[in-house]
């Protein structure tokens, strides 16, 4: 491992520890919801990094179709895999938060529905990759699908802002009078949230880099195997 990688990973671990400390110690207890509200910092951070991952996959896919360089396809693939894990965490933390606040694990609310749609779309992306044998065709089809799939991301973002929803909007004004679990952010909460977002974004970048390197290594291995078979 190169020195800059060590610094990068070390910083990420330190910031993640600091963010966890801030969530459980520094951030104040929310008046109405109590300690359960602390899950908000994980929920928003994983959701943000999940959608960031899909944006990276979109950029990688466009770059692949323009350049045909395999590394862009590998980047997109890695980003979708990590994005799916992060979005799964966002959905689970959201569900855990919903149980005490909304009195249900799940509800067919526009935000929850559209987030799940995005999750399924990117799961389909992985299934598509699995169904194509030719590496070039696989990369091309996957890139096209990743571009189409990203259409669902702004829909998810706008769903809680345009439609009647019980999902709270913490950042920016809510248009829905039915939102449940809405709360005002105190300065300490803002600090904790910003720190969490930075830490999780860094964690995402580290995971993306590592997964990308594994993809590169796999490609090199395939080349060696092919050469041995030839």
């Amino acid at each position: 491992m190169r020195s800059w990688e060590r610094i990068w990973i070390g910083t990420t671990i330190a910031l993640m520890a600091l963010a966890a400390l801030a969530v459980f110690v520094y951030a104040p207890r929310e008046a109405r919801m109590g300690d359960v509200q602390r899950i908000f910092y994980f929920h928003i951070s994983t959701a943000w990094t999940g959608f960031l991952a899909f944006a990276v996959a979109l950029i990688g896919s466009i770059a692949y179709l323009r350049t045909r360089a395999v590394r862009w396809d590998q980047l997109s693939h890695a980003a979708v895999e990590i994005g799916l894990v992060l979005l799964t965490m966002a959905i689970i933390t959201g569900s855990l938060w919903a149980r005490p606040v909304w009195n249900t694990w799940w509800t067919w609310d526009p935000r929850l529905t559209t987030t799940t749609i995005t999750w399924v779309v990117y799961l389909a992306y992985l299934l598509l990759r699995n169904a194509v044998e030719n590496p070039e065709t696989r990369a091309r089809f996957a890139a096209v699908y990743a571009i189409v799939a990203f259409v669902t991301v702004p829909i998810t973002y706008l769903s809680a802002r345009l439609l009647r929803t019980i999902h709270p909007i913490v950042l920016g004004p809510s248009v829905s009078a039915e939102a449940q679990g809405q709360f005002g952010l105190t300065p300490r909460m803002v600090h904790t949230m910003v720190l969490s977002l930075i830490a999780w974004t860094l964690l995402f970048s580290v995971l993306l880099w590592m997964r990308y390197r594994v993809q590169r290594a796999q490609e090199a291995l395939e080349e060696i195997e092919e050469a041995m078979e030839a």
Partner: protein
Amino acid sequence: MSLELALQLERISKAFGPRWVLREVSLTVQPGEIVALMGPNGAGKSTLLRVAATLLRPTSGRVRIGDFSWPPDGARIRAQVTLLGHQPWLYPDLNAAENLRFYQRLYGWPEEPGAVDAALRRMGLADRARDPVRRFSRGMLQRLALARAFLSPAPVLLLDEPFTGLDVLGLEEAREAIRELAAQGRAVVAALHDPATADFAHRVVVLVSGRLVAEGSPTDFPEKTLQELYQAGMDRRTGSAAERPLRPSEGNFLSTRRMLSDGIRGASTAPAKVEGIRSAFPIRPQGHGLRAFQALLWKDLRIEGRARETLTPLLTLAGLSLFLFGAAFELRPDLARSFVPVFFWMLLLFASSLGVGRMMASEIDRGTWEGLLMVPGDRSVLFAGKAMVHSLLLGLVILLSLAAAGVFFNLSLWDPAILLLLALGAVGLSGVTTLLAAIAMATRARELLLPILLFPVAAPLVIAGIQGTRAILEADPAGGSIWLQILLAYDLLLFAVAWMVFEEVASS
């Protein structure tokens, strides 16, 4: 532009993943020249022709014809090339003349009166012009495919195993026709496996393991010489098992007396003096996009009208679903207003997946999809044509189902706003399904993968459609208007993205 244009392949390499199929193949074919491309099975002959025809993108190197080169300019190169592929690209439910007229119009070839009949006569099919192609034998299919290739005014003719299935008479007719075309100034490359059929060529080039290894006149390559060349190529490949994979630029190859070095070689045997047609063949005839669109529409509607391969099963499915839905729920009118929209939008989604999937699968299974991909110019015309046909099909299914719903549920759905919602849904769904079906049908999972790809992407559209229809039925025009706007925005976004990326999907 003159008909006489040379085909230049410049250091073409093609890799499928880590496997190199072509390694720096360079070849020039002069106007009026016939080059026979020989090689053992798996040598890369078809791949080379498909790269030259823009069906495959080379990993490196370029195809040049006149001032254009591929990559990047596949659309313009395609206008200068006619490919006769492995499969005949013929529609069984059209007759022989209709098949030729369809391709004539799709490819923007001049529609001179009598040209189709002359091409059919040339290949001995004059008396079978009105017969459906499904009644043709393999040899007759090949004759018809050759007739289509001979109808083309393109200056470069690429023929992949053109004599497959032909009897001795057909073989001689085909060879004579190819000679005539070359005499008109066409550059012809024919991939052949039988050295006995190569004597009509001016030059023979030999491809082994993705490399051009030898060239000469047809008499230089009797069967025994070819066997030695092929065997030497195989031995070398086996001998290199322990080596790392060769990059295309590495290593020498066979050392025969006609060994090829790098670089582009011209004709070693002078082609016949070029005389004959010198008429201009524009890169993209004016209004070609519209003609190609019309041709696609005409072809699909005519086939569907004759075979009813998609519409009849879809209508049966719609009727059955409607009956089962009605019988299972026994909905009162107030509940029907809430539930019937769900039924219609789900029907639209399933009809889209099944119907469009079936139609795209038929194109791919018949091998005609490749023929469509050879359309000169922008391939998005295929998207437009297919999406239009699919929209019409879905529209018809929905209209007939609406009439049936009035009977089963005592509920009138003939509201202009509902019809607008459903029409928008049909257009948006047909667009995105056309794109995703082109992807799914080229994979291992095929019909199974299409709904997996389609349903989540189409879900916001279907949800907006259900909510909008429900709002209109429950006399909530404000709610209906919001959902209509959401559906329209998503529809446009989806359709625009699908249109933009279709070119990337539309290749072999």
